[in-house]
């Protein structure tokens, strides 16, 4: 039974990674940049929920909605102020470093506003735990919620990208920015929309993460952010199903590594598997390997 329990936990953690990785992968696919501040948007989202519930006393649902709105606006603001001016910079590293600056900024704003102390996060999930196999296997409400949310987001996002006009524009921009512009697509608007969606997902991921692991500090988002980035690369960066597969695989590997090999070695195992995968499939599991034309 413990195996199944670990597997479920792994899928649950992986679902959170997957939701974060979606934000990474969409932004990478469209703006061709690694948004290092993405993990910190998660943390901000969690703080918004915590503050809204504790100080303003609103219901969990309203608090989550509030966090989604706040992070969406924040994401668009960051894109507009810090990333957009560097879109045509001479080196792609410029915007990467700026994203690191934004990451520091968000962490330190959180530090000033909320303090360095670890806050305990109250779960927003109202679902009771599911007891199976005569009490041998308990699946927490948070796990059910997380996996459910992940499935809903995955399906919704795929439909949006495939069917909607804005989704088509996104695909066009990620394929060829210049050509998309010539076809009358609003490239700036599309990129802003991508950041908005990515940040909204980050807010949801933040709530789910902190419901499952109920502690919150200004640095809470950093490591999951990096792991989700790894997940996105794992699955093939730029690919939405890739982010999903990468995220869930990563979560399962991490939990299994902790359970069966060594809890202290979990990070080394995760990163080691990543290296092996990239050496075998240099563009990730679902990534396209593009050869340079001579």
């Amino acid at each position, binding site marked *: 039974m413990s195996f199944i329990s670990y597997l479920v936990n792994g899928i649950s953690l992986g679902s959170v990674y997957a939701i974060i990785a979606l934000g990474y992968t969409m932004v990478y696919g469209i703006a061709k940049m690694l948004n290092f501040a993405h993990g910190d948007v998660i943390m901000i989202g969690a703080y918004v929920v915590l503050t809204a519930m504790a100080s303003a006393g609103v219901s969990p649902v309203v608090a989550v909605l509030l966090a989604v709105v706040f992070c969406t606006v924040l994401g668009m603001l960051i894109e507009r102020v810090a990333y957009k001016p560097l879109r045509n910079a001479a080196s792609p590293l410029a915007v990467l470093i700026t994203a690191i600056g934004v990451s520091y900024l968000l962490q330190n704003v959180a530090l000033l506003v909320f303090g360095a102390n670890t806050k305990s996060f109250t779960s927003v999930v109202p679902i009771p735990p599911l007891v199976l196999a005569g009490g041998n296997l308990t699946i927490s409400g948070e796990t059910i919620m997380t996996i459910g949310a992940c499935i809903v987001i995955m399906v919704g996002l795929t439909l949006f990208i495939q069917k909607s006009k804005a989704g088509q524009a996104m695909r066009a921009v990620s394929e060829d920015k210049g050509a998309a512009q010539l076809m009358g697509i609003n490239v700036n608007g599309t990129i802003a929309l991508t950041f908005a969606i990515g940040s909204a997902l980050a807010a949801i991921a933040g709530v789910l993460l902190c419901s499952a692991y109920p502690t919150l500090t200004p640095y809470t988002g950093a490591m999951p952010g990096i792991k989700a980035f790894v997940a996105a690369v794992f699955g093939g960066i730029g690919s939405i199903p890739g982010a999903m597969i990468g995220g869930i695989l990563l979560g399962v590997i991490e939990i299994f590594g902790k359970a069966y090999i*060594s809890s202290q070695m979990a990070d080394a195992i995760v990163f080691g598997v990543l290296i092996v995968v990239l050496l075998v499939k240099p563009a990730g599991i679902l990534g396209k390997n593009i050869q340079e034309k001579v």
Partner: protein
Amino acid sequence: MKKMNKITKSNLITYVMVIVIYIAAQAMVMTGNMSSLMQGLLVPLCAYVILAVSLNLTVGILGELSLGHAGFMCVGAFISAFFSKCMMDVIPMAGLRYFLALVIGAAAAGVCGILIGIPVLRLKGDYLAIVTLAFGEIIKNIMNILFIGKDANGFHFSTKDVMSLGMEPEGKVIINGPQGITGTPKDSTFTIGVILILLTLFIVLNLIHSRSGRAIMSIRDNRIAAESIGINVTKYKLMAFSISAALAGVAGVIYAHNLATLTAQPKNFGYNMSIMILVFVVLGGIGNIRGSIIAAIVLTLLPELLRGLSDYRMLIYAVVLIAMMLFNWSPKAIEWREKYAEKFKFRKKAKAEEV
């Protein structure tokens, strides 16, 4: 021949700059004008400068993004600290011991560079970045679970805890897992650090302006063309990458021999550190060695200079970093700067003509 002189002159300015900063800092220390906090930063600063210069070799000259530079530093730091602690009684001369520690630290990091580089350098761009990041995290993780002790029977290893080392009672723990290495001789000094900076500069600058450096830069600019004129791409990529790693190892040796306790924390050997070094490189100018030095110094001292602002200092640091990036790299800002510079030049010229 004129160009030769231009390069020599530029290199000379870099060396002189380092020496002048060294003299100024020493003068401040001697006249008591430097806070003890600042003095404590001098040796780590030397390590950071070497890290920035060596990373610039990978990022600026070879043109590959590495996010695991701190991993190589970590290897150099732990191996050399381990060596120095073991040899404390065997080699009582601090100078010789330190020299050997440097050689061992650099060699170990360099070998790691080759081992990582062989499979990884075929990956491109962001994938290379993520694998180097993964490497750095793995090294950090391993250092946190490694226990090594020594007794009459020799060395004992474990990845669990001190007890499972199974040593005789008089055995000594050398590497104590998350508690790291305690009691490394504090042999690093500011002067040694500066000498090692000059040595690093000598290696990197001379490499860049030589046949091998030209080969490395030609691969950066156009790999396919480099192959077409018979340049061995793998060899020179690996060369640049491993030299860069070995120099990071040197920085690790300096860093380790300045600490009472060496531990592998996320902030000194994790990706945070790798990213901080990358910030130095990009802010100082990709491929610009002198810029890396200046950026490393300014950004290391900035939080200390802002100490008066207490809680706000890291916030201001972040804002300054973003602002500087936008000012240095945004095409609009560059255009505006050029326009302004031209106007200024024009005015100067007009004035000169008036006279």
